[in-house]
């Protein structure tokens, strides 16, 4: 006994009304509930609505544990980002960056009017705006796979505020500059990589 499109939509709306905002998280939950309900309808020879109601009364608490809230911090995402940074190609890029900053002194290009902090701030804003624009105007739906990376950008922004000199008088060391350039460009590459992975399935979602 298979559920109709309307019944599937009913489950989807129910979850949306229960704060499951991300489409990809919701889709997996919809499939789980729909499969379980279909089986129960077959076994008990019952209609959709009473079966769904009965299933949710018993399982709602467990099902909702999978709902990732907006901007919730996740170690999985941080772990995924770190794994990405330790890819051989990224490590080679990091070494090239170090070599570049060792050879070229970039400190004279910064002043009190435009510090290295300002540069990273511009980078963060650009990355954040791109991410927001991609979700709001291009996808027009919210996906955890796409938005989860936002936490990392926040962490990187806070880290650079802590480690980089706020005023232009102090020179930034080659190590600090290499590290943060590596982290920010690494983040950009990681986000693009996530979008490419996501796009393989995007048409299915939309």
């Amino acid at each position, binding site marked *: 006994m298979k559920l109709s499109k309307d019944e599937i939509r009913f489950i989807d709306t129910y979850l949306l009304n229960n704060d499951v905002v991300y489409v990809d998280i919701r889709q*997996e939950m919809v499939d789980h509930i729909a499969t379980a309900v279909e089986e129960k309808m077959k076994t008990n020879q019952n209609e959709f609505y009473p079966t769904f109601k009965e299933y949710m009364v018993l399982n709602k608490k467990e099902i909702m544990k999978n709902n990732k809230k907006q901007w919730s911090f996740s170690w*999985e995402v941080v*772990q995924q980002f770190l794994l990405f940074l330790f890819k051989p190609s990224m490590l080679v890029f990091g070494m090239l960056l170090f070599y570049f900053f060792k050879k070229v002194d970039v400190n004279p290009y910064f002043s009190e009017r435009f510090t290295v902090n300002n540069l990273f701030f511009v980078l963060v804003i650009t990355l954040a705006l791109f991410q927001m624009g991609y979700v709001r105007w291009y996808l027009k739906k919210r996906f955890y796979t796409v938005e989860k990376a936002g936490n990392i950008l926040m962490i990187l922004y806070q880290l650079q505020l802590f480690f980089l000199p706020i005023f232009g008088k102090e020179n930034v060391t080659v190590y600090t500059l290499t590290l943060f350039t590596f982290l920010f460009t690494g983040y950009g590459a990681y986000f693009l990589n996530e979008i490419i992975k996501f796009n393989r399935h995007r048409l*299915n979602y939309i």
Partner: protein
Amino acid sequence: MKNSQLYKGSLTTIVMKLLEENGRMYGYEITQKVKEITKGELKITEGALYPALHKLEAEGVLEVEVQNVDNRLRKYYKLTEKGTTETVNRLAELEDFIRNMQTLVQPKLDY
């Protein structure tokens, strides 16, 4: 999950073993397969299964395929190359653990 504290540490290994045997599976299918194999003794809850699957995916152990099935999207999980190697290691670890537990619980006493 029944006796959750005892089974908790083995959940990912159980999932990986099932995926090794069945190729690709979706969440509900995994819960039902475990229930069927253990004759209803072990029930994996949704709240435990999906975070474990997402964690394994983040670690690069699993990859996903999304497919349209019966008016909805279904997310299938399958082992990556890294995942296949990891499954062998984790199963060996689990077997060692079970052996050690058996020795501890039922020690052969020498008189």
